[in-house]
């Protein structure tokens, strides 16, 4: 009897348990469906709406029209130039970025070299080419001082050089984070001890371990280089060197005619297709590579300065001075000088270029900062939404999809956004914000995706088994590296949104002018001094904040060195594109 009662009770308990499990599964399925809906909605709102809007216009041309727009001699040459420039820049920037990261990251004094290499990232892209032309071009600073003109600056070589300088920090930061997490110095030492030369160890041990951050960096650098407009415009026009973004710009000037406008959308979409072809397979491949976790061992680093350190220091200083220092100095001098062609000596100095920009720009400056800040919060959040919800076979394609809006030239994306949302949001800050988030979403997604990938799945489980509640496990294990990645992403998005010019000038409305719009309107894209002043005004606050962040990050570590790594810290910082933060590093720069 008792046995039967116990049996019945056990059966009852089992049934109850099964019921709970069933409810749990249903709950999980519902959550999964909600998550999928959220991601699909985001992709639809930020990528599909503008792209489909543009595609509908392009479709007005019909297949023959599209073919004609892309097969003309000009378009063919522009496509070829774009692919070639983007490919060469990707190889150069990733190689140089990785080399610098390998050289710098295992040495004692890293903060300053990191800052120097990553520095060009805070200079707006539209400024860099212009600054180089003023520094190294004919009648530029080096020409005046030393009769030195950089050969080939106006043409493909110059474009590639400047875009490499702009893309290098993306690669550098990705590899830096990857190095901190992936490349195990012990493995390299083992290889060397087993008789492998330095080159063999690099080729067979270090680089394969860095495969994921290298590929991720390559993806972002490629899209950035292919989509660059300002650099080819300034340096390519005198050489008659057109790319797809400059072609879009030319079409824009003629786009009062519907045919030219259709041509514009066709070329802009062709650029998207190009990126899709390049990135789609890469992202699929990246999604299949499984990162392997490394035990939490302190990386071996030289503790004293060696000759090698000094050589690296000299190289980094020389590079930073040449790539960003002299051009930015030239820019400041140009902004301070009354008119073009005058010597940048105190007798010719003026603040007129700055005061013109600031008159009436105060509210706009606040608005720009607010917009950039909001975009900097939203993009990483939306990025982490996709990163954390996208699993399995959807991971690669979703990563590519998130990147597509970044690949659309700003002017075309703005048109797509107006067509999609203009009826309701025309001229509002929301439509500008929408454009910023769509454009820079990729910078909020990829670093966070990389950070999540780096989390060994066993880690949370281990925390739970050790008695931590799920909240504690998330707080102590998941959030720290994710916070670093999200802060990094936020920093990048803030810089890019604060510098954004093209979309804002098309999207703004009464009372929603951004700072760049106000200055551009007042100075009418005019004199060189005005442009330089705008560049300085847009760059200086970001440099100041970055320098402050770096200084704050450096201060405690100086007093604590050689400090052991904090034991509670998870071993794995974000490992891919644009995640500058390494363990113990500051939020923006390592």
């Amino acid at each position, binding site marked *: 009897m008792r046995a039967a009662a116990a049996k019945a009770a056990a059966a009852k308990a089992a049934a109850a348990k099964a019921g709970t499990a069933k409810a749990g599964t249903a709950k999980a399925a519902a959550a999964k469906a909600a998550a999928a809906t959220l991601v699909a909605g985001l992709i639809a709102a930020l990528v599909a709406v503008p792209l489909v809007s543009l595609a509908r216009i392009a479709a007005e041309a019909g297949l023959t029209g599209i073919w004609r727009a892309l097969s003309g001699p000009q378009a063919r040459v522009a496509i070829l130039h774009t692919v070639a420039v983007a490919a060469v820049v990707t190889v150069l920037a990733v190689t140089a970025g990785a080399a610098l990261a390998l050289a710098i990251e295992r040495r004692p004094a890293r903060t300053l070299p990191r800052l120097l290499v990553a520095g060009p990232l805070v200079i707006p892209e539209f400024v860099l080419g212009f600054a180089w032309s003023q520094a190294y071009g004919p009648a530029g600073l080096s020409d005046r001082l030393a009769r030195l003109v950089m050969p080939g600056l106006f043409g493909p070589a110059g474009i590639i050089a400047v875009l490499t300088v702009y893309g290098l920090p993306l690669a550098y930061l990705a590899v830096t984070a990857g190095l901190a997490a992936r490349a195990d110095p012990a493995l390299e030492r083992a290889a060397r001890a087993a008789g492998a030369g330095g080159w063999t160890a690099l080729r067979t041990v270090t680089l394969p371990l860095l495969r994921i951050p290298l590929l991720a960096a390559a993806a972002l650098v490629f899209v950035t280089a292919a989509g660059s407009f300002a650099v080819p415009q300034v340096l390519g026009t005198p050489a008659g060197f057109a790319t797809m973004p400059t072609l879009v710009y030319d079409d824009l000037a003629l786009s009062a005619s519907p045919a030219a406008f259709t041509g514009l959308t066709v070329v802009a979409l062709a650029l998207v297709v190009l990126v899709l072809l390049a990135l789609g397979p890469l992202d699929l491949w990246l999604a299949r590579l499984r990162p392997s976790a490394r035990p939490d061992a302190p990386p071996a680093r030289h503790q004293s300065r060696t000759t090698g350190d000094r050589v690296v220091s000299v190289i980094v200083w020389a590079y930073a001075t040449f790539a960003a220092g002299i051009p930015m100095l030239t820019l400041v001098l140009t902004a301070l000088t009354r008119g073009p062609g005058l010597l940048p000596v105190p007798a010719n100095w003026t603040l007129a270029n700055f005061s013109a920009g600031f008159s009436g720009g105060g509210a706009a400056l606040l608005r720009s900062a607010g917009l950039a800040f909001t975009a900097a919060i939203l993009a990483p959040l939306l990025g982490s939404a996709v990163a954390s919800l996208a699993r399995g076979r959807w991971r690669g394609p979703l990563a590519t999809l998130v990147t597509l809006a970044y690949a659309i030239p700003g002017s075309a994306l703005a048109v797509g956004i107006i067509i999609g949302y203009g009826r309701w949001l025309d001229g509002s800050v929301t439509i500008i914000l929408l454009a910023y988030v769509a454009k820079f979403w990729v910078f909020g997604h990829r670093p966070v995706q990389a950070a999540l990938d780096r989390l060994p799945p066993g880690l949370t489980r281990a925390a739970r088994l050790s008695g931590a509640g799920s909240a504690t496990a998330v707080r102590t294990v998941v959030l720290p590296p994710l916070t670093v990645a999200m802060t990094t992403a936020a920093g990048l998005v803030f810089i890019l949104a604060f510098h954004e010019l093209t979309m804002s000038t098309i999207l703004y409305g009464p009372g929603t002018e951004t700072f760049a719009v106000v200055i551009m309107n007042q100075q009418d894209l005019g004199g*060189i001094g005005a442009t330089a002043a705008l560049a300085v005004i847009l760059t200086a606050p970001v440099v100041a904040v970055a320098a402050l962040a770096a200084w704050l990050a450096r201060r405690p570590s100086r007093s604590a060195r050689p400090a052991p790594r904090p034991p509670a810290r998870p071993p794995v910082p974000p490992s891919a594109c644009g995640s500058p933060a390494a363990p113990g590093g500051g939020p923006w720069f390592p």
Partner: protein
Amino acid sequence: MRIPRTLAVPFLLASAVTVAACGSAASTASTAATGSASATSPQLTLYTSVTQNTVTAVLSGFAKVDPGVKVTVFRATTGQLNARIAADQHSGGLRADVIWGTDPLSMESYAQQKLFQPWPLPNLTGVPSQDKTTYFWGTRELYLVIVAHKGLTPMPTTWAELTSPAYKGKVALPDPAAAGSAFAALGYFATAPGFGMNFYDKLKANGAVQVSTIPEVVTDVAQGRYQLGITLDSEVRAAIKEGSPVVLDWPADGAISLYSPIAETTAAKGSAGTAAQELLRYVLSTPGQTAIGKTGWQPVLPGIPGPARPAGATEVYPAWTNLFGRQTQILQQYQAIFGA
């Protein structure tokens, strides 16, 4: 992994809060804008590519004459203005009541797309006939001239002399694809007797270089990168005022003149239409034209002072009606010479 759902909660909260904040900011802005409109004052939207100081000067004068009209301005470069107009047309229709452009070519495209009312004030007097079409009239003249580096001798006296061996490798041209005003030079030479595309062949053979924008021509010449260039007179005057080592060289055969047209759009209805016509009338009135002259442009109305011109200066006019619709074709011929 369990992280995602845990993260999704704060993420959703934060984004909802931020979006809500943005939304409310936007709606406040739009109520502010429409609020005054509902208070019986007509509302007018102006799209323009005219320089900001000129727009500001003209509109502040207009506000004194017509204080009841609330004018909303969208100002951008010609290319960005084109993008905005095209986007408007694909999303519910043009949102401007008046368009005030920089050159007649874009304006003619819009006229052909039936975006403009026929010119509503035919009885206004004084505007030269070459600055009038059925749909839009000119408001100011822009002159394409030669800019020279200070001290260059001998100075060219005509356009044709830019192809002389004395200036080999010393001439900068603005990219005609980048702006309508730069295209005016190409449009003039392509169709003018004695020039034609052959003029560009000769320029290219003489080492002339195409740079990107009209202001860049002045910068490059001032810096000595080139000695001569084709650019707008206003840009040269601004650089001279700043002390730059450039001089304005007005060709003896005439500066190339282009006019900056204004038109009422078909979107202007009711009180907005009336207000649009009031603005057009003001721009072509003596006070409006004076404001234009004071901001560095030549007014279209005779007798109203603009910037100083050399004695005996003449101008020539591109054959606009011949150029309408042929922009792309002419550009392609040009790019075959100056492209890659």
